[in-house]
């Protein structure tokens, strides 16, 4: 398998492209989590209009392919606001993932025992206070498995940024495969990098579950 030399010789390219992928992943994950939390809280609020807005956002953004959301973010928003492909990718992927995060976070919060809400109310806590101190910390524990597996999906979705010209791992590998005429080696190497990254994420689940475990 002497042909795999090409991978070693291209390691700098792989490293740079992977770094772009990691940045897009982390930044869009932060965006998705923040927006998803907001949407989940809106969905549980006492105001009908907020609940409706949140449900509509989730319906629309889950009903569209992530690629189409990315197109909105790149061809329309990005074009009008002067965003780079990097910025467009983060906004587009973040918005797409937020709709899923919202559902996961809401399910986690709803899984918290009703008695916790009642005890908080009885002590006179404001809703903002008990959501932050009592409900969300307990909900996180329930969310972890779905949150992690959804984040793995987001990591893989960063490859879509290749379509809008970002030289992240998938797009860069494709260019390299074309220019070196060695698609097997280059694309296999890219696959291995993704596998390592997604497996790492999956394994991190155990760590987070232990971290948020209730002491007993």
């Amino acid at each position, binding site marked *: 398998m002497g042909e795999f030399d090409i991978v070693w010789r291209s390691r700098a390219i792989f490293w740079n492209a992977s770094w772009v992928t990691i940045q897009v992943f982390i930044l869009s994950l932060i965006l998705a989590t923040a927006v998803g939390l907001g949407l989940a809280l809106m969905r549980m609020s006492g105001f009908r209009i907020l609940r409706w807005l949140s449900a509509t956002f989730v*319906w*629309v953004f*889950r*009903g*569209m*392919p*992530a*690629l*189409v959301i990315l*197109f*909105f973010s790149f*061809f*329309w928003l990005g*074009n009008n606001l002067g965003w780079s492909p990097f910025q467009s990718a983060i906004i587009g992927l973040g918005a797409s993932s937020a709709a899923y995060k919202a559902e996961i976070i809401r399910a986690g919060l709803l899984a918290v025992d009703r008695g916790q809400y009642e005890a908080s109310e009885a002590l006179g806590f404001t809703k903002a206070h008990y959501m932050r101190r009592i409900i969300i910390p307990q909900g996180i524990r329930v969310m972890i498995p779905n949150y992690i597996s959804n984040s*793995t999906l987001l990591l*893989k*979705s*960063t*490859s*879509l940024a*290749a*379509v809008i010209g970002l030289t992240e791992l*998938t797009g860069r*590998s*494709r260019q390299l*495969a*074309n220019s070196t005429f060695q*698609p*097997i080696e280059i*694309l*296999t190497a*890219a*696959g291995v990098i*993704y*596998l390592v990254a*997604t*497996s790492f994420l999956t394994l991190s689940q155990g760590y987070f579950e232990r971290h948020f475990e209730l002491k007993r």
Partner: protein
Amino acid sequence: MDLGFIADIVPEILEGLPTTIGLFLWSMLLSTVGGLLLALARMSAVGALRWFAVAYGWLIRGIPLLLIMFYVFFALPEFSRTFLLSPFWTAVAALSLWTAAYQAEAIRSGILAVDNGQYEAAEALGMTRAHYMRRIVLPQSVRIIVPPFMGNAINTLKQTSLATVITVPEMALITTRIISREFNALEPLLALAIIYLALTTLLVFGQAGLERAFRLKV
């Protein structure tokens, strides 16, 4: 925003609908067969089959679909010319390989969910394993399989848009062509979004209908 313009381009985008539907239906057919085989392999008594099914799931779920598509398109023909497929069939192959891994999980969880006592009852009645699977397990499993199966189907429908990158003329590709021709992104994208929303919403209703149809009579 120009609603008249949206109305004008919807028919043009819909020219890609048969291709999108074709990608979707072929991928669903192949991935359901593949997923069922993988699920049975995973539960088989033969260690190598089980190992293969696990490795397959880990591999496919660990890699972006887009990379799988590039692999089928650029790399597989390097192994053998028989793998040289048209863009359409490349997309079908990639989508099927990808969806099968998820459908295998959906099918397996459905089969595992059937109470073990049922197996004992069937055995006590002297049923063969094949008879037991076909007459006892599958009818009960279908009910449990429907929600994740349809969830995967909705994902696959949305992922057909990735065929754009290997120049399959489905709806997303046609839309990008309109965008570059008209120097205008908002209306074409809105039109595309509305069509996808209609399709995925239709599938959600289909899922609800199937769940009703398979509900246990109690």
